[in-house]
C-alpha cells in the first residue's frame, strides 16, 4: 500500500518543485522587464538614477522622465497584465476551454464600450468611468450567460453569442468615437486594442486597489476552481458550492478586467494567451493563477517595449499583442478542428 503511493507522492513533489521554479523564473523576468521599462526611453538612465528617483530624490531630467512618464506607464502595464492574465485563466479554467476567455467572448469589449460611453457622452470623472466600466463588463457577462443558456447550453454557443455581442459593442465604440469628434487615431487605438500611451499616475489607484483586493479572493478559491474544472458533478460531490464559487470568481475577475480596461483599453489577446502559456509551463494539475498573472505582466511589458523601441515607428501595445495573439488563436483553432474538438 505505502509503496504504491510512493511514486505518486514523488511525482506530486516534483510537479510542485517545477511550479515553484517556473514561478520564480517568471517573476524574475517580470521584474527585469519592469526595470527595463523605467530605464529605456529617449534618454537611457542607469539603474542607480532610477532607484534614486524611486526613493524620491530629485535627479535632474530623470525625475520627470522616469517619475512622471515611465513609472505610470510601467505600473499600468504591470497591473493590467496581472488583471488580464488572472481573469483570462479563471474563465478558461472555469469553462474548461481556452476559447472561453474575456477577449474572445467580448467581456473586455463590453467594459471598453462602457468606458468610452462614460468619457464621451457623460464626460464623467475617472472614478465614475471605472464604475460604469465595471457595470459594462458585468452586464456583458450576464447578457452572454442568459443568451447562451437556453435548452442546449454549450461552450460553442456561448462563444458564438460572445462574438455577436462583440461585433455590436465594437460598432458602439466606433459610433461613440465618431460622435465625440475624438476620432483621432490615438484614442481609437486605445479603446479598440489597448495602449499604454499617456497613462497618468492619478488614474492608476482604482486598478491597483482592485487587483490587491481581488487577487487574494481568487487565490483563496483556486483550489475550488481546479475542482470545478473536473466537472459539475465531481465538484458538487467533493463539497464545492459550485454556484457560489462561480459567481465570486466571475465578479472578482470582471472587476479587475473592467478597471484594467478603463485604464489601458482592452489590450488585445493578453487574457487569451496568458492561461495557455502558463499551463504549458507548469504542466497539468497545478493552479495556473499566479503563473498566468506573471505571464500576463511579461506579455504586456515585453509587447510595450517592442512596440516602443523595436521599430522606427512606435506601436501601441495592443497592436503587438494582437499580432502575436491572433495567429496563436488561429493555430489553436486548427489544432482543435483536427482533433475534432469543435
Amino acid at each position, binding site marked *: 500500500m505505502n509503496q504504491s503511493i510512493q511514486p505518486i507522492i514523488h511525482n506530486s513533489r516534483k510537479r510542485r518543485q517545477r511550479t515553484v521554479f517556473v514561478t520564480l523564473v517568471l517573476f524574475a523576468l517580470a521584474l527585469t522587464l519592469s526595470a527595463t521599462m523605467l530605464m529605456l526611453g529617449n534618454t537611457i538612465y542607469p539603474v542607480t538614477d532610477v532607484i534614486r528617483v524611486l526613493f524620491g530624490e530629485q535627479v535632474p531630467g530623470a525625475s520627470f522622465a522616469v517619475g512622471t512618464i515611465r513609472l505610470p506607464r510601467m505600473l499600468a502595464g504591470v497591473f493590467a497584465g496581472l488583471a488580464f492574465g488572472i481573469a483570462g485563466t479563471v474563465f478558461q479554467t472555469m469553462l474548461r*476551454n481556452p*476559447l472561453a476567455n474575456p477577449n*474572445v467572448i467580448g467581456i473586455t469589449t463590453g467594459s471598453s464600450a462602457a468606458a468610452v460611453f462614460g468619457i464621451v457622452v457623460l464626460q464623467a470623472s475617472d472614478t465614475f468611468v471605472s464604475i460604469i466600466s465595471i457595470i459594462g463588463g458585468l452586464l456583458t457577462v450576464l447578457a452572454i450567460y442568459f*443568451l*447562451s443558456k*437556453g435548452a*442546449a447550453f*454549450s*461552450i*460553442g*454557443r456561448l*462563444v*458564438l*453569442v460572445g*462574438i*455577436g*455581442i462583440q*461585433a*455590436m459593442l*465594437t*460598432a*458602439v465604440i*466606433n*459610433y461613440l468615437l*465618431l*460622435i465625440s469628434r475624438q*476620432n483621432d*487615431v490615438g484614442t481609437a*487605438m486605445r479603446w479598440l*486594442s489597448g495602449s499604454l500611451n499617456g497613462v497618468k499616475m492619478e488614474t492608476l489607484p482604482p486598478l491597483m486597489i482592485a487587483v490587491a483586493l481581488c487577487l487574494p479572493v481568487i487565490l483563496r478559491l483556486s483550489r475550488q476552481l481546479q475542482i470545478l474544472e473536473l466537472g459539475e458533478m465531481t465538484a458538487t460531490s467533493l463539497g464545492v458550492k459550485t454556484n457560489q464559487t462561480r459567481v465570486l470568481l466571475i465578479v472578482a475577475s470582471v472587476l479587475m478586467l473592467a478597471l484594467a480596461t478603463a485604464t489601458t483599453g482592452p489590450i*488585445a*489577446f493578453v487574457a487569451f494567451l496568458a492561461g495557455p502559456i502558463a499551463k504549458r509551463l507548469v504542466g497539468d494539475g497545478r493552479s495556473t493563477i499566479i503563473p498566468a498573472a506573471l505571464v500576463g505582466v511579461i506579455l504586456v511589458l515585453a509587447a510595450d517595449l517592442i512596440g516602443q523601441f523595436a*521599430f*522606427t*515607428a*512606435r*506601436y*501601441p501595445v495592443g*497592436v503587438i499583442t*494582437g*499580432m502575436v*495573439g*491572433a*495567429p496563436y*488563436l*488561429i493555430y489553436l*483553432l*486548427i489544432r*482543435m*478542428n*483536427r*482533433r*475534432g*474538438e*469543435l
Partner: protein
Amino acid sequence: MNMPKKLHTPKRFGLLLAGALVLLVVCMLASLAFGSRTVGWDELLDGLFRPAVQSYEADIVRQRVVRTVFSFMCGAALGVSGALMQSVTRNPIADPSILGVNTGAALFVVVGIAFFNISTASDYIWFALAGALLTAAFVFGIGSLGRGGSTPLKLVLAGAATSAALSSLVMAIMIPRSNVMDQFRFWQVGSVGAGTMDSIMTFLPFFIGGIVIAILAAPSLNILALGEELATGLGVRIGTLKLIASFAGVILCGAATALAGPIGFIGLLAPHLVRLVIGADERYIIPMSALTGAILLTFADVAGRLLGSPGELEVGIVTAFVGAPILIALTMKVKVRGV
C-alpha cells in the same frame, strides 16, 4: 428526375416581388429626399426629370442619385453574396463580415495605399478582390478542417480569429504612415456616401458578372442543398459548383467592400429574411436577396443620415448595430455541438 419546379405559385412570388420592388422604390426615394437638407416632392421631381430646372434643391437631388444607385448596387451585391456563401457552406451563419473577408479586403487595400500608391476606385477594387479571395479561401480552409466539415462554430471562429490577425497587420502598416491612415479611416467605417459615378462604373462589370453567375448557379445549388452525395448522384459537379458559386460570392462582396468600405451583416440578414418568407428555393432566394439587400442597405443609409443629422452616421455602423442582434438570435437557433 422531377425536381419540384414550383415550390411556390408564381402568383404569390409575383406579389412578393412587387411588394419588394415597391419597398425598394420607397427607400430609394427617401434616400433622394432625406439628408441634412430635406427636399420636397416637387424639387425631387425637378431634380430627377426636369434637367432644365436649376435650383439648389434639384442639384442636391441629382447629387443624391449617385449615392442612391451606389447603395442599391452595394446592397444587392452583399445580399446575393451572403445567399451564395450560406448555400455553398450549407451554413446559416455565413456573411462576408463574419467570415473576415472584409478585413482581408481591407488589408490589401491598405497595402496598396501604403506600398503601391493606389488611390482610385479601379485600383482599390483589384487589391480588395485579391484580399477577399485569399481570406475567404483561408477561412473556409481552417473552418472545414476535421470532423463534420464546416460547422457554424468553426467558420465563425476561424473568421473572427483571421479578422483579428489581419486587423493587427492593418494597424501595423498604417500607424507609421499618417497619409495612409487618413485615406483609410474614411474608407474603413463603411459608407456609401463616397460613391461617385466613377465607382459605379468600376463596380458595374463585377456586379453584373457576379449576379449572372449566381442566377445561373441557383438550380444546381438547389440540388446541392439535398446533400453532397445525392447531388453527385444527380450529376452535379460539386467541386466546380462550389468553386464558381463562392467565387461569385467573394467577387460581389469584395467589389462592394473595395468601393464602400466594410459593411457588415447585410449579407447575413437579407437571405434569412427572404428564406423566412419564400422558403428554400435558391432560384427565388438569389434575386430576392438582391432586392432585400438593396432595400436594407438603402434604408440603413437613410436612417443613418436622419439619426446622425446634421452630419451622418455611416451606414456600416448602422448595419452592425442592427445586424449583430440578429446574428445572436441565429446562433441561438443553430445546432452547435458541445465543445
